[in-house]
């Protein structure tokens, strides 16, 4: 279970990124974060593994608190939080298999980590994960030769390699075509149930959130204005989440 309370973030330029954001997410669910551009979706998601450090509030994952964690404790915590990115962030010249194995680097000591020494068991598991995301036959191909959808599946396998409790997805389908989008979203939803993961996805498209998410968090101007099951997302709630944008369009 992931518990977030009273998260606040102000950027050096004075812009309020997050204002008193709090919620609780269960294992085995997909949560979509939606809201207008610049509302704080990315700030929120990146706070959850402390790529961005909030000034106050708490993020608790299985009894471990992240906001006040030391560097070592944070590294320890990040091992259990996978992340996938809009631009996949793979090491392009390396093979899909090597990219997946990078998911183990958090557990390695200095020298094995530097030299990329992986155990036989790790290699077998990486292969099995590639099989699971449907890329077994591309395992030895360099990442740069794969399509966007395939790259994102390698990214998911790399995250799974960490045996995570949480996977953060930062606009994972923003660079993909509709078919790859469906593949990736279906895969994420399936993995959440199968492996009892807490999956959190930043999305621009409300219809995708409705289709694939169990739970929705709506952010507007840094505040959490909706935090409920997907079924509860009605027109009034949407109007609240996208309030400012409509005001701007209507002049």
């Amino acid at each position, binding site marked *: 279970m992931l518990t977030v309370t009273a998260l606040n973030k102000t950027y050096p330029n004075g812009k309020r990124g997050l204002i008193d954001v709090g919620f609780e997410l269960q294992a085995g669910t997909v949560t979509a974060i939606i809201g207008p551009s610049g509302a704080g979706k990315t700030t929120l998601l990146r706070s959850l593994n402390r790529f961005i450090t909030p000034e106050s509030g708490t993020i608790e994952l299985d009894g471990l608190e992240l906001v006040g964690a030391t560097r070592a404790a944070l590294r320890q915590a990040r*091992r259990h939080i996978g992340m996938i990115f809009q631009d996949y*962030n793979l*090491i392009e*010249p390396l093979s899909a298999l090597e990219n997946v194995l*990078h998911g183990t*680097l*958090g557990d390695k000591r200095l020298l094995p*980590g*530097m030299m990329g020494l992986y155990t036989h068991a790790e290699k077998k598991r990486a292969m099995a994960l590639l099989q699971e995301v449907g890329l077994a036959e591309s395992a030895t191909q360099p990442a740069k030769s794969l399509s966007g959808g395939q790259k994102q599946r390698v990214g998911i396998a*790399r995250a799974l390699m960490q045996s995570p409790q949480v996977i953060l997805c930062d606009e994972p389908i923003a660079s993909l075509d509709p078919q790859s989008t469906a593949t990736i979203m279906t895969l994420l939803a399936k993995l959440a149930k199968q492996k009892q993961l807490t999956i959190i996805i930043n999305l621009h498209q409300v219809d995708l959130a409705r289709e694939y998410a169990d739970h929705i968090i709506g952010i507007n101007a840094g505040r959490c204005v909706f935090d409920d099951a997907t079924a509860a997302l009605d027109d009034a709630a949407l109007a609240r989440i996208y309030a400012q944008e409509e005001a701007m369009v209507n002049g």
Partner: protein
Amino acid sequence: MAELTRYFSHQRRVRLLVFGTLLALLLLAQVALQLNVIEAATGVFAGWGWLVANFAPIASAFPALGEISWQLAATVLIAIAATMVAAGVALLLALAGARTTSHWPLAQALIRPFASIMRNIPFVAWALVLLFSFKQTPFTGFLALLLMSVGYLTRAFMETLDEVGHGVIEALEATGAGYWAIICQGVLPAAAAPLVSWLLYMIENNIRDATLVGMLTGTGVGFLFDLYFKSFRYPAAGLVVCAIILVTIAIELSATKLRQVLNA
């Protein structure tokens, strides 16, 4: 309408000004150097004729071939050695200085200007300064090339690391990986092709420069050319030039091939 006319007449004035300035500079140069462009042009042809007649590596020059090959090999090896050592130093400096890979603001602030200074001092100046301390030895040439290359490669490597760095580092930081694991397993593999490309470029350049440095430091194939030239053994000197051209082209071609393989 009036604005459009004004805009185009302004453009025309700017172009006329640039062209006029260039023409004036050329005329000034002619007067200052008492140089006549037409005479110079015909002179070039006469010069080439003299060059071909005297420097053609005729049969009498070929006994020198053994000596030339040996010195040429030595020069090439010095250039390669200087570049490789420089690359090692430059990579560490670049890691400490690049925005994406550096954890040390002080190093970031110092390394960039340091590299610029090193790069902008020409290797000939380095060689002249170093001659005082290290005399006319191959080591002086090695050091001169090394110092310039460190500056050049540090700048180039820093830019390469900054280009590939951010997403790669973020992806591996998210797994909880440590700094050196991120560098060795993420950043360096991602940057390998451009890094090697810079290295090859530097080797090519240094081989050319090494022959020049040799003239100053009295070593290698540059010195041999100087020696032949001053002792009026023009065909042998011509043979040195031909050998240098051949080796440079060969290195250039193999570097291009290597780049193609790496980028495939």
